[in-house]
């Protein structure tokens, strides 16, 4: 580069600079145009889903959100059951995943010997690379039978007998159901939460931790008293990221949730989520039908839910993004 510039006489370089200005304009607008395209893309997704779902919103009004009906024969559709299933599985998945993610992030940043950190960290992150459909098959053919024969009967006999919360753990041990969906989701979002936690734990200035160690604090006390307070906001942001991912997972949930359009009291009961309902019912919907419009309206609701959660996550993680 330097050689070619140096070997040209001055006027030639000026001429090229003129051409460069044109090139600059074109290139900058290409880049900006691509950026605007991405903006327009998100806008188009929102608008398209809303317009396509409009017939359902018009036919059922606000009641569409809460109605638990889903009757293709009578052409009555409501989002209640699937919204409930989506939120419950995602929240339960967070409850299950956060302790595991925290444990492994803590282990990888503070406890593990240095030579072990990279391979173990990579292995945990590879969990995020496994496709959703593989989780679905593995869950359905391996975890569900194991859970139904070995764990679920025990839980039904012990937790199911308790007053108040017992109702959550009753019912026949089929394996599939809301709880199983949440369990598989928990494994799928674990690497996302763990990776965020690990990143932010590593950003704590060493001098803070050293001071606490210098006062005689144990590793756990340093974690509790220094690292967690310092990273609290970002940790919540990482959890929100996991929640956003869990809301829209489709294939794995479709395999293990049992696919029934009802709200069960028991966590072992079958259910559905917005994504699983769309995946299952789409093939049986005719073009232009009210059912198809209802599915697209569900898509719009799902987009709204995940948009809010992901935007919140990004807001909480902004300090990490700047660093």
């Amino acid at each position, binding site marked *: 580069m330097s050689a070619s510039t140096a070997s040209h006489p001055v006027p030639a370089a000026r001429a090229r600079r003129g051409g460069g200005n044109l090139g600059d304009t074109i290139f900058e607008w290409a880049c900006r145009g691509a950026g605007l395209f991405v903006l327009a893309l998100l806008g188009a997704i929102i608008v398209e889903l809303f317009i396509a779902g409009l017939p359902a919103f018009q036919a059922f009004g606000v009641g569409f959100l809460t109605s638990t009906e889903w009757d293709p024969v009578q052409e009555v559709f409501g989002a209640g059951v699937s919204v409930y299933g989506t939120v419950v599985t995602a929240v339960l998945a967070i409850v299950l995943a956060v302790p595991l993610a925290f444990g492994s992030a803590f282990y990888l940043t503070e406890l593990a010997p240095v030579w072990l950190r990279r391979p173990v960290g*990579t292995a945990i992150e590879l969990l995020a690379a496994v496709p959703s459909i593989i989780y679905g098959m593995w869950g359905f053919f391996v975890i569900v039978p194991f859970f139904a024969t070995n764990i679920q009967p025990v839980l039904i006999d012990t937790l199911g007998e308790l007053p108040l919360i017992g109702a959550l753990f009753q019912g026949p041990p089929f394996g599939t159901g809301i709880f199983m969906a949440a369990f598989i989701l928990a494994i799928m979002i674990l690497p996302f939460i763990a990776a965020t936690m690990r990143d932010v734990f590593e950003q704590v200035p060493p001098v803070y931790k050293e001071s606490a160690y210098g006062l005689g604090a144990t590793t756990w006390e340093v974690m509790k008293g220094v690292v967690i307070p310092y990273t609290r906001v970002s940790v919540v942001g990482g959890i929100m990221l996991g929640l956003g991912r869990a809301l829209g997972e489709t294939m794995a949930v479709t395999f293990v949730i049992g696919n029934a359009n009802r709200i069960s009291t028991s966590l072992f009961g079958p259910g559905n989520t917005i994504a699983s309902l769309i995946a299952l019912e789409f093939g049986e919907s005719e073009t232009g039908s009210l059912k198809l419009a209802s599915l697209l309206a569900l898509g719009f609701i799902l987009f709204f839910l995940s948009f809010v959660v992901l935007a919140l996550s990004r807001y909480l993680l902004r300090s990490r993004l700047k660093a």
Partner: protein
Amino acid sequence: MSLSLSVGTVPGPRKDPSVAAALGRRRKRADLVVRTLCIAATLVGLAFLASILVTLTYRGFEAMSLRVFTHVTAAPGSDGGLLNAIVGSLIQALMGTAIGTPIGMLVGTYLAEYARGSRLGNAVRFVSDILLSAPSILVGLFVYTIIVLPMGNFSGWAGVAALSIIVIPVVVRTTEDMLQLIPNTLREAVMALGAPKWRMIVFVCWKSARAGIVTGVLLAVARVAGETAPLLFTSLGNNTWSTDLGRPMASLPVTIYSFAASPFEDWIALAWAGALLITLGVLGLNILARSLLRSRK
């Protein structure tokens, strides 16, 4: 004697040494318990990965044969393979990446080189991050409404479009990150030589960030190769041999989905074989991408 000395020199209220010792033991115990739980949590995570890999290897190899690669999908009991699904997946994943990568690179370049701190830049970055984590099934629905409905039929092109939308944010993220790692002194040096900005970006910045950008592209291929949900409503699947992008096109994940949910033993076996192939491909690409990035750092 030493006891009275320590009591006398430590400021604050007097402490009973036996109480202090008990407290110390309790703190140590709490520490030990938490450490153990953290190791257990990590092991649980690793156990899941191991269980997935062992299951896939065991069931996948059992069903694996040359037939999987030489025959197209067929009715249950008639010795089909997965050839059309494998080829369909390759075509759609590679074309989706080929379309999504240039757009993603331009957006990443815009964010890193032109829009640092600008309002439009922040908005684009925000939207790209949302797209990165948004449910992929919605991308499928979107492409269904804008391509499949107007064209009147499911098609490979629609699948390619859906996958390219998923590729864009992945490439944006890595391109921007990698370009931001380039020291400004390098840019200043190029500008000082009289080069226009676009030449600086294309011949210096992109070149220095090449390993990182390639990593992003590999990760994007890995991501879309395993996507099922967006293809259900776009390329739909096809049980016969077809490389015509204007018609419905088979793909490995969608075929796995329909075969695994079927009651036929041989279809389920084929689904395991396909699952093994796809996982090996996806994890292989991920590991390759990581090692590529590490060797360049």
